[in-house]
């Protein structure tokens, strides 16, 4: 799966959050682009990038309940009517669209009665409408609240949660989580120091055994339920 990450941030060099996310990017099958760094938007290139991606991620800080102006300008320039739905051709159909949004306020603020009084889903509704118009699949939003307050364990969790949001099959079920780790274990073991590789392989074996055991239990349960229905 190819993932395109489009970052919109007017002062990206000053953003510790964006620096952290860039350092956390998965090693493979990722294209990363900072919108405001393009002095002139090359529409054909941007559209080609969108065409080759299976999952498109829009990543930005929330400014006044919306994306920064740079992303709107990118939308207005790149997402032309004829590209998105003209002539009843939908080149983006079936692709996934996800949003990674960072906020200065805590998660509790984004609800009715909360300090912001608006849910993130409501704030991002125009982008979700674009996804619907283009026949894309809208992914549940990945929100990072108050990054600077996160302690080290939370930042460690964020690295992998972010990588999975970019590359793991949706929905984020235990089955899909197991498959993601299963796919990555071989590469991670190969990167271990030589004396740790045998431990790495034993861990992989045990992990996959647990995965198989769960599948067996699920099959047994499905069978019991089927008999109960008879």
């Amino acid at each position, binding site marked *: 799966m190819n993932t395109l990450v489009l970052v919109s941030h007017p002062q990206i060099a000053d953003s510790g959050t964006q620096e952290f996310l860039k350092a956390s990017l998965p090693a493979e099958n990722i294209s990363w682009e900072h919108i405001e760094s393009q002095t002139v938007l090359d529409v054909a290139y941007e559209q080609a990038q969108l065409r080759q991606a299976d999952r498109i991620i829009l990543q930005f800080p929330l400014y006044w309940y919306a994306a920064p102006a740079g992303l709107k300008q990118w939308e207005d320039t790149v997402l032309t009517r004829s590209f998105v739905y003209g002539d009843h051709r939908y080149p983006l159909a079936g692709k996934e669209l996800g949003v990674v949004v960072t906020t200065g306020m805590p998660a509790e603020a984004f609800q009715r009665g909360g300090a912001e009084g608006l849910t993130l889903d409501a704030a991002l509704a125009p982008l979700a409408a674009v996804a619907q118009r283009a026949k894309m699949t809208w992914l549940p939003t990945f929100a990072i609240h108050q990054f600077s307050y996160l302690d080290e364990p939370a930042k460690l969790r964020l690295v992998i949660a972010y990588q999975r949001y970019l590359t793991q099959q949706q929905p984020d079920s235990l089955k899909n989580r197991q498959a993601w780790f299963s796919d990555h274990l071989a590469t991670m073991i190969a990167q271990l120091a030589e004396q740790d590789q045998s431990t*790495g392989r034993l861990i992989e074996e045990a992990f996959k055994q647990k995965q198989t055991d769960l599948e067996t239990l699920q099959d047994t349960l499905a069978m019991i339920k089927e008999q109960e229905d008879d």
Partner: protein
Amino acid sequence: MTEEDTVWLHQAIQKLASRQAKFTDRAFWLALDEVVREQDQRHDQLGGEVDGRTWSPDRW
């Protein structure tokens, strides 16, 4: 997998994580440990449900 094996697995993953110099590598192994915990929890729940449904008095 026995309880002893599970204890070994968590310890082995945590030890590997602590030996990683790179932040993102450490993050991977720690996240794997979390998924293993999730696997164990789901295993207990499913096992309990299988037992419960097999021994339901309604079906005696």
